[in-house]
């Protein structure tokens, strides 16, 4: 949504200016490093003001994100990044709100929330780093793990089918739906930039391999299956997007859907901003109502 909110007269912000002093704690080779760098590049491309930026997460390896960004952050409870992000954005629609998390946080414990955030089309950007595994708890199947996945908690192989996040978000009515791959950081940065600029809820799934607990689903696995979305795909073609998302052989990368719909806070507040100065309570009206 933001179109460059850096304080007027402030110096040009570089990607490094969005880095906090904390060093990421991820395993060497983790896909999340690439996603973090892509976010820095996207923020610099838009010149987002760090004072107005809020990064919200749940729990998981990727949910450590807020600590690594020079921004206000809320590292909350498992699965609840989106409700917290909604609260932040509704309380102050002038903030740039980015929610981040992993596939377990987003689609398992927090799966009930995405539907409603998409439904509201609230103007936040949600980046889900999908590694098809629970990493922080040291390797159990996630909602995107494939049948037969062997972990300590599924020693005979997972019995469930995985969900396909892009199709889900498309059917929830999300107005911006994209998929990237952490090995293509430039593409992911552009996607995040477009997502942030998009007026409404933007969902970005980033394939981000776990090199420690999900070795079979590593860089080689994804490299063999990723492909750019066909150039003829139109982002307002819902069923075309559904067909491409559901391709069993390929992970198409790019923006599946991008359409305009009024945002939640635009509908809630006149002009999309909380009124300033705040209107006073009309006590005499309230007295009439209750007497």
């Amino acid at each position, binding site marked *: 949504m933001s179109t460059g909110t850096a304080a007027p007269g402030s110096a040009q912000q570089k990607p490094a200016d969005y880095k906090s002093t904390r060093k990421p704690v991820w395993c060497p080779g983790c896909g999340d490093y690439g996603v973090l760098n892509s976010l820095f590049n996207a923020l610099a491309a838009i010149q987002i003001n760090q004072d107005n930026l809020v990064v919200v997460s749940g729990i998981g390896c990727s949910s450590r994100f807020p600590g690594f960004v020079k921004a*206000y952050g*809320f590292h909350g409870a498992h699965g*609840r990044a989106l409700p917290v992000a909604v609260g932040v954005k509704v309380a102050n629609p002038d903030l740039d709100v980015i929610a981040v998390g992993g596939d377990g946080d987003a689609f398992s414990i927090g799966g009930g929330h995405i539907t409603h955030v998409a439904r509201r089309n609230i103007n936040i950007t949600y980046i889900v780093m999908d590694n098809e595994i629970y990493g922080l708890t040291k390797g159990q199947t996630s909602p995107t793990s494939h049948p037969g996945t062997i972990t300590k908690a599924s020693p005979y192989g997972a019995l469930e089918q995985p969900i396909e996040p892009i199709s889900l978000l498309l059917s929830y009515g999300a107005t911006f739906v994209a998929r990237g791959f952490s090995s293509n950081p430039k593409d992911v940065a552009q996607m995040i930039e477009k997502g942030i600029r998009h007026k409404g809820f933007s969902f970005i799934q980033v394939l981000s391999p776990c090199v420690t607990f999900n070795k079979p689903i590593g860089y080689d696995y994804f490299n063999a299956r990723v492909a750019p979305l066909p150039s003829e795909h139109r982002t307002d073609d819902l069923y075309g997007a559904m067909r491409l998302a559901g391709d069993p052989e390929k992970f198409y990368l790019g923006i599946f859907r991008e359409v305009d719909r009024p945002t939640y806070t635009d509908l809630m507040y006149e002009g999309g901003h909380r009124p300033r100065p*705040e209107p006073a309570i009309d006590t005499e009206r309230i007295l009439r109502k209750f007497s």
Partner: protein
Amino acid sequence: METVRDFIIGLGGESGEGVVLAGDILNMTAARMNIHSSSFRTFPAEARGGPSVVKLRLCRDHVYSLGDEYDVLIAFSEDAYKLHGPDLAAHGVLLIDGDPADPAQQRYPELAGKIVYHIPMDRIAKKDVGEIKTKNMVAVGAVAALFGFSREMIEKSLAERFSKRSEKMLTDNLKAFTAGWDYAKANLDKKDPYRVEAATGDGFLVLSGNEAVALGALYAGCRFFGGYPITPASEIMEILAAEMPKVGGAMVQFEDEIASMGGVLGAAFAGVRSMTATSGPGQSLMSELIGLGSMAEVPCVIVNVQRGGPSTGLPTKTEQADLNLSLAASHGDAPHVVLAPTTIRDCFEIMELAFDIAEKYQLPVIVLTDQALGFRRADLPKSLLRDRSGHAQPVPIPQFGEKFLRYQITESGISPRSAPGMPGLQHVATGLEHAEDGKPAYDPPTRRAQMEKRQRKMAGIVRDYAPTSVRRYGDPEPEIGVIGWGSSAGPIKEAVEAAQAATGKKIGGIVPRLLFPSPNDEIRPFIKACKKAIVIEGNLTGQYATYLRSQFPGFDPMEVHRYDGLPIRRSDVLQKIMEVAR
């Protein structure tokens, strides 16, 4: 026959017959006549069908409880009489739907000797008005004529309520009201002593506990409400849905209670006074995030309008059984506050207190009301609202030394707090244990230091708020002492006063509004003085009594429990006191 001006009216019928509206009209009319009142409505859990009842106590002075039995029962049918007849006082008066040619006394021998007025409500509504839905207004008309409610004021109320809906509804209801009034004037020979009388004044504000909570929050500067529908708390959400946009605030109906609490934390983090309101099942779901609020030190207010639990329990009935849940509130040692308003006025005023504590001490504050308070209405002075500005309270610019540390170790346990948008004061709020700068840290010294810092806030809360938190009735250091919490305060007050008058003994009551942390210095002299102490509460196991025993080793009170879904009555308390005083 001496006129009696303080009396209790019961209205009973089937849900759908407009019993609640009839009660509302009478209650509002009384308030406009400057008559004090307390009223209560119950209806079945199902959307339609089942019994519906309103109790309306009218008085020349402010009353603190609903009192006991009905002096006047208005039965919309014989079925309603069968259900509510047992609550009619021995000297009581019955108004019943029916034909005087076929008196109810013939079928109900217990009515022999009682004053019974027959009003063919059904027939008048159907035949004379031509709209069965106006039966309730026929009843209101007859009641107004018999007991002295202002005809002009009721007609004005009807105009206010129905003119916006449809011309026909207004005409039908006015016609029904007049028909009921005329019938009573022409056919009923007033034999009872009950009659209301207008007093001077500019009328009262009449609020239910739920309405008082909602308005209290609004006037306390709350500008974000996140919630999920649940009986008996939904009204709070509905009122704020209407009011928030008018003051630049927001009401978000979330997808569940977990999300509601998440939204509240997010909005509070963004610097807006934020709350949710729910009932037991919802608070159970919120527990994890209430703990997050405690750990991340996010100010927030959670109102629980308690109903019968556990599980779905008694959705439309009252209980005080979520104390244990609220004392723990979360897993882990999670500093937070539990408040319990005692009256409707408290429901309004405690919201400002709740937000002030939450904001100053940066923690979750749970406010425990219950269905008995939530659905009870009482009169309040209009000045209650006029004297408050109700402005939103922004997060003050934090004061700090060399470096802004969001979780700085301080003597008070209160750390400097910033909100997004404040230049250069970025921090990460986190539910992980953390160092002063918010960075996750699990080493034992940091853990100890942060745990103790957060816990120190509790001592400050006791210091700041305990002295004014306690309601006292009767003798402050009594021989017989009654202790309770929340909605039982009114019955305790009235029972203590009645028992003092009846026995001449030193009898007192104490009802703390701050339940956690416990205002022990305020309670101790009272219980030390008691030769006999009674803890009365609306749950089966004596949750507050158990808690008090943990606070005061050796304290062993008698206990009175009510867990049948009904509010504690004045007579429940009085009976026990008299038994002990003997």
